[in-house]
């Protein structure tokens, strides 16, 4: 094996990875979840979810800088001891495997309901997983390049559609800004789960050229992705009104359908939106897959991550095919969201607290 040269990430690459990871499958149904929980207060609910995510993000960055050159898989043992860390690592890896599978399944479901109705869902899911798998075999350099390349391709069209849709907006539909329903808490967790892609940062901080820049890139990455989610929820509610959103399975797609390019160039933008969305799904899936195999590699201490890639594929496929129908799938995704909240937000906060109390920190020259 040839010597691997050390790959380093710039601040912009880091932010781009966060943005394209956080923007994923969920942008289609998420206005529905938000409105179910908070009615016209959906925007506020999203803002709260971003706030909660921010706590998790800051803890993960703080931990990453406290233990230079290590990811959560490695420094866990130093903070809470080997057995507990092993538990945590196993949970994290299983969580990421399930997350990847569920995202692939959600993708397949949307495609089979709205675009390719005759195509078996297995075909769509396996192709998406295969592309993610082939990409996940590559090294960090390729990983960063793919994300950097796709981020503007995801951001620009979505921004365009959202801005165009504002011509049909009715500001009255956004009021009252504070509203709630009995399901607000479970909705909040589901929405927070959409941002849990930020967790990949724990794997990347050790590779940053200047680790202190992790703060800036972390915050700007979450900021841009969060702003996009806020724009989507605001425009969806402003165009449709909260009550109408409750009737729509994929409100964002419906928004694209109701929006047209001026002067009859395109009467509906849903086809354009779907193709962008496929890219967004791919980058998210890619990140999750990448996290799963690299976490496995670091935990088991092997030299190469590639052997895990195709080993995981059948399991991913199997998990993806578990839900029997679309409603069961979303119930499952809500469950995963709760687990994700514990693992990606609560755990880092706890680990950071314990590390501070016990005075643990990594060796300064570990990098």
């Amino acid at each position, binding site marked *: 094996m040839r010597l691997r040269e050390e790959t380093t990430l710039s601040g912009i690459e880091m932010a781009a990875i966060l943005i394209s990871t956080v923007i994923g499958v969920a942008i289609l149904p998420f206005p529905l979840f938000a409105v179910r929980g908070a009615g*016209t207060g959906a925007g506020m609910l999203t803002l709260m979810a971003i706030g909660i995510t921010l706590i998790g993000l800051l803890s993960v960055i703080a931990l990453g800088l406290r233990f230079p050159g290590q990811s959560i898989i490695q420094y866990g043992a130093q903070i809470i001891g080997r057995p507990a860390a092993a538990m945590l690592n196993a949970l994290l890896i299983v969580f990421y495997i399930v997350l990847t599978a569920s995202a692939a399944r959600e993708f397949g479901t949307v495609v089979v*309901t*709205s*675009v*390719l*109705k*005759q*195509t*078996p869902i297995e*075909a769509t899911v396996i*192709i998406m997983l295969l592309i993610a798998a082939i990409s996940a075999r590559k090294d960090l350099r390729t990983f960063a390049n793919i994300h950097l390349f796709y981020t503007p391709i995801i951001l620009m069209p979505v921004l365009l559609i959202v801005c165009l849709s504002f011509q049909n907006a009715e500001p*009255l*539909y*956004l*009021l*009252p800004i504070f*509203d709630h329903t009995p399901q607000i808490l479970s909705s909040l967790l589901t929405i927070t789960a959409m941002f849990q892609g930020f967790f990949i940062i724990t794997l990347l901080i050790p590779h940053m050229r200047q680790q202190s820049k992790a703060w800036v890139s972390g915050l700007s990455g979450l900021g841009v992705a969060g702003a996009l989610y806020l724009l989507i929820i605001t425009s969806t509610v402003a165009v*449709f*009104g909260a*009550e*109408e959103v*409750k*009737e729509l399975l994929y409100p964002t797609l*419906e928004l694209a*359908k*109701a929006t*047209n390019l001026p002067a009859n160039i395109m*009467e*509906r933008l849903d086809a354009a939106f779907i193709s962008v969305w496929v890219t967004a799904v791919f980058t998210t899936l890619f990140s999750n897959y990448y996290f799963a195999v690299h976490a496995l590699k670091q935990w088991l201490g092997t030299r190469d991550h590639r052997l895990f890639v195709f080993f995981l594929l059948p399991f991913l496929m199997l998990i993806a095919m578990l839900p029997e129908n679309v409603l069961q799938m979303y119930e499952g995704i809500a469950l995963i969201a709760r687990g994700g909240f514990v693992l990606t937000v609560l755990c880092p906060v706890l680990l950071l607290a314990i590390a501070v109390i016990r005075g643990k920190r990594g060796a300064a020259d570990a990098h």
Partner: protein
Amino acid sequence: MLTREEVRCVRTFAVLAGMVLLLSGCWDRLEIEDRAVILGIAIDLAESKEDLEEEMKEQINHSNAIGAPDMPVIKISAQIAVPGRIPLGPGESGGATVGEKPVWILNAKGHTVEEAMNALQQELADQIFLGHLRIIVVSEKYARNGLGNLNDYMRRQTDIRRTAWLAVSKGKATDIIHSSPQLERVPALYLLAMLDHSVDMGKLPNEPIGRYWIRNSNLGQEPILPYLVLKQQENVQVAGLAVFRKDKMVGATTPLQIGAYMAVNGISEGGYSFFVPVVNSSKNQYVLMRTVNRDTDTRLVFADGRPKIIANVSLEGNLREKTESDSYNFSDSSAIKELEKKINEALTQEVMHLIADTKRMKADIFGFGEYVRALAPKYWKEHVRSNSRWSEQYHSLDIEIHINYKVRRVGMKAK
């Protein structure tokens, strides 16, 4: 033994072949001439006895063993574009030759829309495609029965455009959608152009099916749809707005009331004209005014703990004609001021009349309830909460309309 180069070559070829197989999406391939592109649909209630009995015999989606919902049987009539005969431009080339109709009309029956569509598919070689469906006309009888089933069907479809028109016809919907005017060879497209141009000319609010759904979902607002009437020359008139209350049609307005409705909601691009008595109405001294611009500022206030709507309607218009040439003149701006005063009185009456009509129907088509829901959430949560309770409250809602009409121009005549 193969050389390294050859192995690489074979491998590349295998990958390419695999991509061709995987990426082409063969499952969903459907050639355009294998699609039955439906441009317009008309829905009527099946009335004659034979119609009903025939439907019971056919049993496409129901059987005597399972039974069927006890709903009135509907009859749908679809306009299917015939490939190659849809005229593409103004010339004859590419279009239909004389005598060949560019559309094919098929009828089917069922208890629900989906059942009728299935019946239609059963007698059609090509797969039905609704992506180009532009207009759906339902008869008043069907609309008064409720559009719940139709909306459920439409919402579940992925191809349906939110910008398709849904309209109510006074008589049979089938007659309206198949009326073949001289200007356009495809009846459904003529109807579409008619509604679109009405919107452009300010004669109709832009309320396609997507807006209808939104207003139907909104708790403090009721939907409206264009109300169409068939005239003698096989042409169609926009005869007002069909007023709905939760999926069910409850009444209709007159054409001029569309203008009043658009004034209250401040929908710009004014397009209605109206008579105003100027000097002496008994002597037939009227002028005909035409509104060109509308803008409305709606406020919600509370008086004695009850909501009250104050709408300040600003209109701009031009003088179009006088009933007599010289007995009364407009040569200075004070005469215009005088005229504006009279217009304000006349229009306030007209608008209050429409409001009284809708109050009687308990249908808040103006969406005043949305103001209450959005601006006074506390009151809404305590006293309203639901759509039906808002309808009751709308019945006795206090509404104040201030009309401020500005006459801007008088045309090319100097007095």
